């Protein structure tokens, strides 16, 4: 009966409204609902005006991703706390102007920022006219539901309305939700509300990673808008209100897998001095949970960590092999905003690259740097690495099962890639306990790592002579790379032996197609160091041109079909115009190139020097030219070294030809660990 009465009441009300011609038809009902939702928040929505001169003076604002016009803000506390975007109030701004719905202007000061989310908290005088806003629970959000973006960028007096649906609830590694409501810089900072007027989030121009955008404003009329969930911001409101600026949090680990999404979440390197190192995480650990959320692949871990800030402490659970069994370790790293600058440290060994990236065979030491740490410890080439353990580091928490002793928790029988990962996290002066196997015998030695060397050692690492699955030959051979469709097939000098080879690409004077005679001086050096040398031709007879770059990138792929390429040892070198071109190519190859050597070719003005990081650090050799060139070289060398790259000297060969022996020795030693 009571249900019937309810139904009757509903029908009567609906029909009365229908009689008034307001809400009977769905379109009108929706229209009324949009208006009602807007009215729930309108009194808390304010206009934000940039203050001229508060930002860096100049007209480049728009280019710098900084608002040149009005946008929007949301009053989160009538005592005078207002959320806006860093787009509207950049961190160079000392103040902003908030325009209240009644047209009154009040001054605002930035208190704190959520840097990854691009949100700033402003402090103004009290705004008693602002209404309270209710956050929409993030868990309740579903793609497809109505979303309404409310702004005051157009007019302080009248809120603007843009209606759409929620397109996604998880964007930018969990930083934002997505909407198809038409949001523009005029809406940034304003609320995105649900149909009940609850605030889903603050509209913000987040960059969309796959679209390769520098900032998020490019998408304003593309049906793609983002909002930072209000719940996430309320969680940090006390810190922002206290004047804190929150940076993204860094853990300081690298994964063993190259697959950044589906790869196994096994830690390859733990950066020295990083939160992960201080919390006792080790190379070889498999992450199984972060903050209680299960982690099965690399992407799970990233989703869990990306929304967190520097200063946040997270709970990380890892599985670790110890003494033949797997134990569960809990660590509580406190994330930081930056990592200490990285300095490349070496054991002084070159290990044989696996025949492919997934090769699990224990790393075999091909060569020991004379006088290097491994040499001093009496380790000789030919042995394989049985284990590596970090010494003198923060220990896992005492509460963990079987408190570890120094040298415990070794990575057993690391592959070449795994060993490189461990070494990448270490710094000069740090000690490791290295187990080396020769035959059935394992000897354990403590080794203090050295700083990376700058000059090419006189003794080259020996060429690979062992049999492997890769194509091979007994003598050095010269071939052309590329099929019939390649206009100027480069020459390649391939050393004898099998398995992955280091690659050196040499650019001499531009001269048109590569000539067989050019290969002759390289044969001996290539064979002695076991390095493949690619000699490209130039499309133009008198200059290297951008057209030649694509050909070289393809040449490396073609070579890979003849003989596997050791991707950790790819180098480019050149003289004069060829040297200038080598810089260009190095930049284009990015992390695919680990060394640049040039004669008489200064660093191009446009060359971007990126700070050396594990996996991207390069070894440069500079030389040649007159006195003026030498002065310039000193400056270049200083800039590269300050960015953390190794910089050595390249000397001309006595006969005026390319310094083939030195370059091949260098290319072979590029993978020095």
């Amino acid at each position: 009966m009571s249900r019937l009465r309810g139904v009757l009441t509903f029908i009567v009300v609906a029909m009365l409204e229908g009689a008034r011609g307001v809400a009977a038809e769905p379109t009108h009902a929706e229209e009324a609902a949009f208006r009602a939702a807007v009215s729930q928040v309108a009194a808390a929505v304010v206009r934000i005006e940039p203050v001229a001169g508060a930002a860096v003076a100049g007209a480049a604002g728009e280019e710098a991703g900084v608002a040149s016009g009005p946008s929007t803000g949301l009053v989160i506390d009538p005592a005078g706390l207002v959320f806006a975007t860093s787009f509207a109030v950049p961190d160079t701004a000392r103040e902003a102007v908030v325009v209240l719905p009644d047209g009154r202007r009040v001054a605002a000061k930035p208190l704190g920022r959520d840097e990854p989310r691009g949100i700033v908290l402003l402090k103004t005088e009290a705004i008693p006219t602002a209404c309270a806003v209710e956050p929409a629970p993030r868990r309740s959000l579903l793609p497809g539901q109505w979303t309404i973006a409310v702004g005051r960028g157009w007019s302080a007096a009248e809120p603007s309305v843009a209606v759409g649906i929620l397109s996604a609830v998880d964007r930018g590694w969990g930083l934002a939700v997505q909407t198809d409501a038409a949001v523009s810089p005029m809406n940034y900072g304003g609320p995105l509300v649900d149909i009940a007027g609850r605030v889903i989030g603050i509209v913000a121009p987040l960059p969309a990673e796959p679209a390769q955008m520098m900032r998020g404003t490019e998408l304003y009329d593309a049906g793609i808008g983002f909002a930072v969930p209000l719940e996430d911001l309320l969680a940090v409101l006390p810190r922002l209100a206290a004047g804190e600026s929150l940076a993204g949090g860094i853990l300081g680990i690298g994964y063993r897998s190259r697959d950044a999404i589906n790869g196994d979440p096994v830690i390859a390197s733990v950066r020295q001095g990083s939160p992960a190192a201080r919390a006792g995480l080790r190379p070889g650990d498999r992450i199984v949970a972060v903050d209680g959320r299960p982690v099965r692949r690399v992407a799970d871990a990233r989703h869990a960590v990306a929304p967190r800030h520097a200063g946040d402490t997270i709970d990380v659970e890892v599985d670790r092999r110890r003494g033949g069994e797997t134990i569960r370790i809990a660590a509580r790293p406190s994330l930081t905003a930056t990592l200490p600058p990285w300095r490349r440290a070496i054991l002084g060994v070159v290990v044989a690259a696996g025949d492919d990236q997934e090769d699990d065979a224990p790393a075999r030491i091909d060569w020991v740097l004379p006088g290097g740490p491994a040499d001093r410890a009496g380790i000789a080439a030919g042995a394989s690495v049985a284990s590596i353990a970090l010494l003198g580091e923060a220990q896992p928490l005492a509460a963990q099962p079987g408190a570890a002793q120094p040298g415990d928790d070794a990575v057993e029988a690391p592959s070449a890639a795994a060993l490189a990962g461990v070494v990448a996290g270490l710094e000069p002066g740090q000690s490791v306990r290295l187990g080396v196997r020769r035959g059935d015998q394992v000897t354990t030695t403590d080794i203090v790592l050295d700083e990376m060397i700058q000059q090419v050692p006189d003794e080259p690492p020996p060429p690979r002579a062992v049999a492997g699955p890769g194509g091979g030959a007994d003598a050095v051979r010269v071939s052309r790379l590329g099929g019939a469709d390649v206009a100027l097939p480069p020459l390649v000098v391939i050393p004898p032996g099998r398995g992955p080879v280091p690659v050196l690409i040499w650019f001499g004077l531009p001269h048109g197609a590569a000539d067989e005679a050019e290969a002759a001086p390289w044969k001996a050096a290539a064979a002695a160091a076991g390095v493949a040398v690619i000699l490209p031709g130039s499309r133009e007879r008198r200059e290297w041109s951008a057209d030649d770059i694509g050909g070289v990138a393809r040449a490396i792929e073609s070579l890979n079909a003849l003989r596997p390429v050791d991707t950790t040892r790819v180098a480019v070198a050149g003289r004069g115009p060829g040297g200038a071109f080598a810089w260009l190519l190095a930049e284009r190859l990015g992390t695919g190139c680990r060394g640049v050597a040039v004669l008489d070719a200064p660093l191009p003005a446009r060359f971007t020097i990126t700070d050396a990081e594990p996996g991207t650090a390069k070894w440069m050799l500079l030389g040649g030219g007159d006195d003026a060139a030498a002065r310039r070289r000193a400056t270049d060398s200083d800039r590269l070294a300050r960015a953390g790259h190794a910089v050595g000297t390249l000397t001309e060969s006595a006969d005026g030809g390319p310094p083939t022996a030195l370059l091949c020795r260098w290319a072979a030693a590029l993978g020095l660990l």
Partner: protein
Amino acid sequence: MIAKMPLCAAAIVALLAVRIGSAADAPSPQLVAATAARSVVKIYGAGGVRGLEAYQSGIILSPDGRIATVMSTVLDSEGIDCVLDDGRRFEATLVGVDLRRELAVLSIDATDLPAAVPAEERAAAGTRVLAVSNLFGVAVGDERASVQRGVIATVVPLEARRGAADAPYTGTVYVLDFTTNNPGSPGGAVVDSRGRLLGMIGKELRSSAGGIWLNYALPMDEVLAGCEAIAAGGGSPPLVAAAPPFDLGLLGIVLVPDLLDRTPPFVEAVLPGSAATRAGLASDDLLIAVGGRAVGSRTAAERAVGAIPAGDPVQLSVIRDGTVVDCDLGPRPAAAERSTPQEAAP
């Protein structure tokens, strides 16, 4: 309670009749779209070079062939073709233009055309609308114009620029929350959920405030006023020239020198005995608004004061020590007279 039931049921029956009646008044979106599209014409003319489109949209305003559209290079043509919703093609004559509203009226030789029904009042933000236009020229041959949906985002005065030049129209527009800023869309119809014509999609423009492309429509009352003016032969009222920048020295304000394009309007000095001194302005004040409108640069400030008619009050807002201070400088002097003969204070 039970005794009341029959009465209640009778009431429901009675109300149902009303309900059905009102439902008939609120047509379905499909019907609205179809009706609106009948009044929209595709216009083809000059262009096709230098990236300019040779097509746009228009709205039939009278059964005898009066068509409203936007003034554009498309109309700079010997033959302007109008393709009706039913596929019929007519050569149109340009009746006249309204330079301020950038509006044109065309005429075709036809009768009994399905003229649009204008709304009697303006719509408010949040109103659901449909837009019908020849967007991107995708409606080829006798195909019907394209229909889009969205809401009116806001109803505000137009502050826009086309290239570097300001748009001549500064009256009210409907800002739309969907993309109508497309080739071919200008001249198209924006109708409400009952099919009443609310406005005409305007020309491609960028907002001078936010620098974003504008999706907007000229409200119907402005369109009709423009058409009437054109019909009366006065369709081209002289454009009001932009007010010249005002020498703020006449109010006793010395701003920092204009070294950059967008020099912030900081007060460098205030002339003794001037209106500025009396109003309490001080050096190092940062001018943020004139008459309640934001000014982001020295040039903008000078223009904003220039736009105030002589004799009207000059109200400035400045930021001083992190606080907004409003200053009333009294009536704006005419450009010729100085408020004070004194020299600038050191």
